[in-house]
Each structure stands twice: as structure tokens, then as C-alpha cells.
């Protein structure tokens, strides 16, 4: 089966980010993306592994970072279940319109870490929600969608570098039996260290 039919592997889609990531890019991951990001190798000082999280708040958290640090690119890796919990954040983001902000939606159609139950946006295996249309209607300056790894790989750096806010939808294959991420350390200490790196 092609990646078009089942979606890109999550780890491969994240590997694209690891490869194109610059030293002053901030990468915010949550839930499944956080789990895989941690498993893929050593963390960067500007990785914000949002674990523990308040589900749905990653895009808003990244917005605050983008406003406080306009010279750094903020890349938020959000899941579709998380996105559905906070659709209003799309409008909050575009109202501020930070040019250094990219929201990547890793859409696998399910609540992966709770057993793969479909989100309300999913009927059978098909998404009933056009997230790109939502983002465009909310006012994102650029909206893109990818369901093939090669195309995502070729475009990623250029899309992140253009003045945003930018929304990117990735069609992702669920990871069967996946578990939730665990914090890679004492959360307040991690926050203090991250803040120092972010403010440098």
C-alpha cells in the first residue's frame, strides 16, 4: 500500500524536521510527536517536549514563544485530536500573525495513545474535516498539505522559512499500540533550561 493511501510514517515525517532543523529553530512536540521525537535521538536545547501537556494548548504555547522571540522560528508539531480541542487557537494565532510561526498538523484521524479511537472528525477511516480549509478560513497566510514523504521532504525548509503564520497538514499513519510519552525529566527544571536557551 502506498503512503498516499495509509499516510506517512510518523517517524519519517519527523525525521524530515530533524534533518532540516537549524540551530536556532524551536521545535515544540506533544503527544505522539513528542514520544517519537524523544526516541529519535538526543534533544536539542530548543526542543520543547510538551510533556506533561494540557491537551490542545500546544499551538497557543508556541504562539507565546513566537511573540516573545520574533527572531526565532517556532515550529509547533500538533496532533489532530489536540487540534480539535482548541480550534479557536487558529484564530488567536492569525490575529497576532507572527511571521516566525509554523503549525504542522500530524493528522492520523485517531486518539492514538488511548487505543486508537477515531476522533469526532473521522468516519470509518476517512477524515470528515478539511483542516486546510479551516486554517485558510482562520487567516493563515500559507496553507499546505502533504501525503507523500518525498514531497514533504523537498518542501519543508522552504515552507518554514517563508513569513508566516504557516499551516501544514501532514497525512500520517497511526502507530498501532502506541503508548503516551513520558516527560524526559523534571518538568520545572526543563522549563528553566529551555527558557535560558530560548532567551539567548
Amino acid at each position, binding site marked *: 500500500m502506498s503512503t498516499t493511501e495509509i499516510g506517512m510514517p510518523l517517524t519519517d515525517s519527523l525525521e524530515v524536521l530533524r534533518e532540516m532543523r537549524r540551530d536556532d529553530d524551536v521545535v515544540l512536540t506533544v503527544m505522539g510527536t513528542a514520544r517519537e521525537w524523544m526516541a529519535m535521538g538526543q534533544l536539542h536545547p530548543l526542543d520543547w517536549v510538551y510533556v506533561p501537556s*494540557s491537551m490542545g494548548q500546544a499551538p*497557543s504555547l508556541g504562539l*507565546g514563544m513566537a511573540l516573545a522571540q520574533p527572531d526565532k522560528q517556532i515550529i509547533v508539531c500538533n496532533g489532530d485530536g489536540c487540534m480539535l480541542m482548541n480550534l479557536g487557537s487558529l484564530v488567536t494565532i492569525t490575529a497576532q500573525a507572527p511571521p516566525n510561526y509554523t503549525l504542522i498538523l500530524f493528522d492520523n484521524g485517531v486518539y492514538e495513545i488511548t487505543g486508537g479511537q477515531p476522533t469526532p472528525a473521522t468516519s470509518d477511516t476517512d477524515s470528515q474535516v478539511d483542516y486546510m480549509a479551516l486554517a485558510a478560513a482562520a487567516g493563515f497566510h500559507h496553507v499546505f498539505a502533504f501525503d507523500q514523504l518525498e514531497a514533504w521532504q523537498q518542501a519543508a525548509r522552504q515552507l518554514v522559512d517563508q513569513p508566516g503564520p504557516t499551516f501544514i497538514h501532514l497525512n500520517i499513519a497511526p502507530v498501532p499500540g502506541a503508548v503516551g510519552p513520558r516527560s524526559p525529566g523534571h518538568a*520545572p527544571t526543563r522549563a528553566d533550561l529551555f527558557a535560558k536557551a530560548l532567551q539567548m
Partner: protein
Amino acid sequence: MFTANQIVDLLQELAFTHVVTIPDSTLGQWEDGLKASESIEYVGVCREGEAWAVAVGLELGGATPLVMIQCTGLFESGDSLRNALFDYQRPLFAIVGYRSYLDQSTLPGDTCLKFTEPILEAWGMDCSLYDQADNADEQLKDIATQVLRCRESGVPGVALVAEGRA
């Protein structure tokens, strides 16, 4: 209870850089003044839970945000508040409008009066109630003292400001 000028002067004096907020009928009266401030950025959010998350991002990035929401929004935003203030122990300060405290005529029996203070007590934050409408100058000084106390201790705090309209 406070005018826009009083609030803007207070927040500027305390060097807040951003106000992350959703207006209610009291807090909304300060909006124009806040937006006119040259040293404060006004960040409107769509739901109160977002306010805490945006404020955390700002604070991590070196800014000094203030969360400004009504008590109904405090109820809504519990999980985000929990994550921001307790999981990550970020020392955020908030002004929370206490709906109906001074006047229940618009919403008789408003249950905000039943739940607001117990919920804030449950969160265990440094919280003070400001309800002396005839003594605004002193109340503003007390808010400033509370903010500075929280900053010195590195803890979150809430100034609970009594409101008279729904």
C-alpha cells in the same frame, strides 16, 4: 472599580509586557487603554485556557505577561492553569474578575459567588480579593504589593477584582 488609566498605569509601573485576555463587561472597559499603551502588547485569545498557555510561552521567551480573565474563564481553564502553574511551575500573575460580587441585580443568585473563592483556594495560589470600590488608590497599591511579593517568591498569584455587572 478601576478606570482604564488606573489599570494601564499600574501594569506599566509593574513592567508587564503583555496582557493576555478575554474581556468581560468590566475588564473590557480597560481594553482601549491597554491597546493604546506603548509598553504593553494586548493579546486577545478565543478561550481562557489559551490565555495560560500563551502566557507560558511568553514567559519562557523572556516576556512578563499578565493573564486577565473573568472567573467564569478561570473555571473553564483549569487544566491549562494546572499545567502552567503546577506541572511547569511558571510564576504567572493573573487579574480575575469576580462576577456579580458587588451587584447581583443582573444575575440574581449568580453561582460564581459560590464557586470562585473555593476554587482559587483549592489551587492554593497567592490570592487576594480587591472589593473596596471606594478606595481604589489603596487597592491598586495593594495589587502592586502582591505582584511584587509573588515575583520575589517566584510563585503565581491572582488578584481577584470584584465586579458589579454581569
